[in-house]
């Protein structure tokens, strides 16, 4: 999972708790998506953590958590073509979930379910 260290990232928050990192992403992103532990981004990085795991989007920058056993949790951001693709993938998944839900005429899953994807506008948080 340390492959992320080879990418061009910026550290937004360092050596903190997972909960504080999630709150940072929720407060500082324009869009927030919740994914289950093990969700893969950038082809080979598995996001780990305490569900719900927040991923944030701000323009083309993706905000995500990175936990190191001896140093705590970091919030990192990557802003490039790959992050743009990841954000689009999250949007597509969210759209797919809504479409599937409408087809079944069932209410949406709870946003706090570990398996659920959910988007929030900034004002909803």
């Amino acid at each position, binding site marked *: 999972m340390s492959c992320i260290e080879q990418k061009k990232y910026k550290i937004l928050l360092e050596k903190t708790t997972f909960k504080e990192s999630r709150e940072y992403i929720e407060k500082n992103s324009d869009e927030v998506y919740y994914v289950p532990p093990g969700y893969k981004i950038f082809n080979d990085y598995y996001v780990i*953590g305490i569900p719900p795991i927040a991923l944030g989007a701000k323009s083309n920058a993706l905000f995500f958590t990175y936990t190191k056993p001896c140093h705590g949790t970091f919030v990192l951001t990557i802003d490039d073509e790959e992050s743009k693709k990841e954000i689009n993938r999250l949007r597509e998944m969210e759209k797919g979930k809504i479409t599937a839900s409408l087809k079944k005429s069932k209410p949406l899953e709870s946003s706090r379910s570990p398996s659920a994807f959910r988007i929030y506008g900034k004002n909803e948080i």
Partner: protein
Amino acid sequence: MTDAKVLLMMGCPEVPIQTSIALYLSHKLTNLGLDVTVAGTDAATKLLKVSDSDGYYAKKLVDLDKTLEDIIEKRTDFDICFAFMHNDAGMTYAATMSAISQARLYSIVFGIHAETLAETIEFDCEKIVAKAVHNPVQLQNKLDKVMEEIVK
């Protein structure tokens, strides 16, 4: 419960009792007939390798992140997992294990902030808590009882 696959998941090795308890658990569980794998960070694994240079107590040593990756990708899984934690990062790894694996999870919570840390655990697991840093005996005694239950 013999032949069950057991994972010992070590975190940051900053607190001394982790290494001795990991070796103790690995050896005891192996002697009880369980198939034990010990996963850790690079430093935690090196501490174990130096302490047990012939691999007498811990026979299978693997990388922690690679193991989680294999479980996520469904290349492997375990029946029982003991997750060591003395900080928030350790708890984060255990929470991940709880979400991705079918294993029955035991959280071994130790260190100076053990009780406070144990209170923050929200996932399903059995907690084994000891406010211990240097002296492993309290934790050892609690784990002896857990092992008795496992082999019943």
